[in-house]
């Protein structure tokens, strides 16, 4: 007899537990307009939210006079664990006649970058930063290798 | 429409399936290579033969089913004439189901239904 009561109890409890789950899914089913869904390609220009700090790619900011802060010290190149950065420097003669090392090309391979931020961390001049850009895909792998300094850009001297 | 409807439906089903598969075969691309011809086993070559003597557990259920299904088939005509026959039919079927139930209990006791 006890077994029978236990049997009925099992069945009843089983049904109760199942109905609880069913009610939960029904709750979500009847209010689809409350679901939080990002409609990605449509909201690309409107409601999409990319946080400020999001690390999308490394950039070398230039100011309005086309000047950057990179001194070509190659600390970032050494800090990078993947060999993403190649800094090609050139030697030019300054106004006072001294030979000076300046940045020629800041080559950045986005395809190898893991966004670890070591380069930004290592830079003593705060010349490079992470930008919160997305949609960086390209059709050709070679397009991932970028030269970050703009043509004709110059070193921005520190105001002392 | 009568009994012909079964033939029609059978015909419909077969035609539809053949037509759909045929159209699919006709329009679909076709390229075979030895790798594609392997049976799917999570990307690993299958080891040993697949068609082996299989565990009897599944088969037992079919056997027990057969017994019970035949008896349920007997219940159908009984159910249709239950109203007319009345109490006799009920008593008879009570005994019948009792035996059926005992059979189930027996199968249960003998662990024919305990899954392997």
């Amino acid at each position: 007899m006890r077994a029978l009561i236990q049997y009925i109890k099992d069945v009843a409890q089983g049904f109760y537990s199942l109905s609880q789950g069913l009610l939960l899914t029904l709750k979500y089913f009847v209010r689809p307009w409350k679901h939080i869904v990002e409609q990605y390609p449509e909201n690309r220009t409107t409601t999409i939210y990319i946080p400020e700090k999001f690390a999308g790619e490394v950039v070398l900011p230039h100011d309005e006079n086309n000047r950057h802060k990179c001194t070509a010290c190659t600390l970032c190149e050494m800090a990078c664990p993947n060999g993403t950065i190649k800094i090609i420097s050139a030697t030019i003669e300054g106004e006072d006649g001294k030979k000076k090392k300046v940045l020629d090309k800041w080559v950045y391979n986005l395809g190898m970058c893991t966004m670890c931020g070591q380069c930004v961390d290592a830079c003593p001049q705060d010349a490079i930063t992470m930008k919160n850009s997305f949609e960086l895909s390209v059709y050709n792998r070679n397009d991932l290798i970028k030269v970050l300094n703009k043509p004709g850009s110059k070193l921005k001297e520190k105001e002392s | 429409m009568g009994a012909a409807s079964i033939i029609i439906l059978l015909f419909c089903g077969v035609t539809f399936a053949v037509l759909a598969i045929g159209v699919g075969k006709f329009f679909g691309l076709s390229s075979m290579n030895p790798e594609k011809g392997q049976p799917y086993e999570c990307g690993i070559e299958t080891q040993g033969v697949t068609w082996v003597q299989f565990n009897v557990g599944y088969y037992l259920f079919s056997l027990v089913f057969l017994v019970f299904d035949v008896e349920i088939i007997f219940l159908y005509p009984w159910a249709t004439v239950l109203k007319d026959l009345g109490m006799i039919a009920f008593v008879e079927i009570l005994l019948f189901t009792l035996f059926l139930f005992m059979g189930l209990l027996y199968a249960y006791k003998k662990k024919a239904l305990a899954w392997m």
Partner: protein
Amino acid sequence: MTLTIQFSDITKWIHETLNASMSPGWALFSEFVLAGVAMILLVVVLAVLFVYMERKVAGFMQLRLGPHRVGPWGTMQVFADVFKLLLKESFAPFTVDKFLFNFAPILVLAVAFMAMAPISFAPGLQLWDMNIGILYVTAVSSIGVIGILMAGWSSNNKYSLLGAMRSGAQIVSYELSAGLSLVAVIAMCGSLSISDIIASQADGWWIFKGHLPIMFAFVVYVIAGTAETNRAPFDLAEAESELTAGYHTEFSGMQFGMFYLTEYINMAVISMVATTVFLGGWLPFHIYGFDAFNNVMNFIPSWIWFFGKTFFIIFLMMWFRWTFPRLRIDQLLKLEWKYLLPLSIINVVIVAFLVVMGWHF
């Protein structure tokens, strides 16, 4: 029901026009063709609706929107999928049993079609009002398991084989309690014919007549029906986390499409039978005494009633699918042999007792 056009009138009109314009043999033949085309259309339309509905239900329950890109509200998604399946290559591995492999999808689909024969969609809209209608549907729909076994065995794939074996044991077991729960209603109304069963519900659907055993039978039938159609939580035969895709692992392209279609047709058959037997078929919903309400209900065409109920039961199945985890194979069989089957047998006895004592109405 006075205002709506009766389907029996339409069929009668077609019959008369055809007979008037050609010889009786040809007229009969064209009627067959028309019926066949109509059935195919019905099945395809239903399948399309079910697939769309399944996706939307799943999406809404999972905090998503479901398909909503292709066409307005994603309505064209199903057609896009059909075209995808049509254009995909259907190939078989080298080691399959060629004949059975190609035959299996055709068999399951043909069987699913055949089960539709005695179902009455609306007054007069029925292919064959046979006197053993319910028995016929149960008998025919259980042939489908042979197709699944064929598909699984012939694939020469271990997952497929396991899936086929599982579904063999599963579908066959749940046949019993599904059959027994139908017996309960048959005992009440005393006929196997579908039109008689519907007629017996003119004064109230079986489920609303207040018989507890019938309500129980309905619950059992829905559970067993879900299991028979291999739907989650009973989708052991194609459990994707265990057997990848179960018995149709090796099928691709339109051959897979046939299994996919069959699943939905089987669901339709199961829910149509449940509608007919428990929910009054195409009869409108009536409350005894409220004549105004009843008249409004009568105004709704009977085929809408039928398909509305069908879709309700289909929704129940989808609701289960997107809520519950899957059972294990031994639990599945235990549920049947330990719980559903004994309870169904007792249930039938109770129903028989009620009928014999005349305590039913």
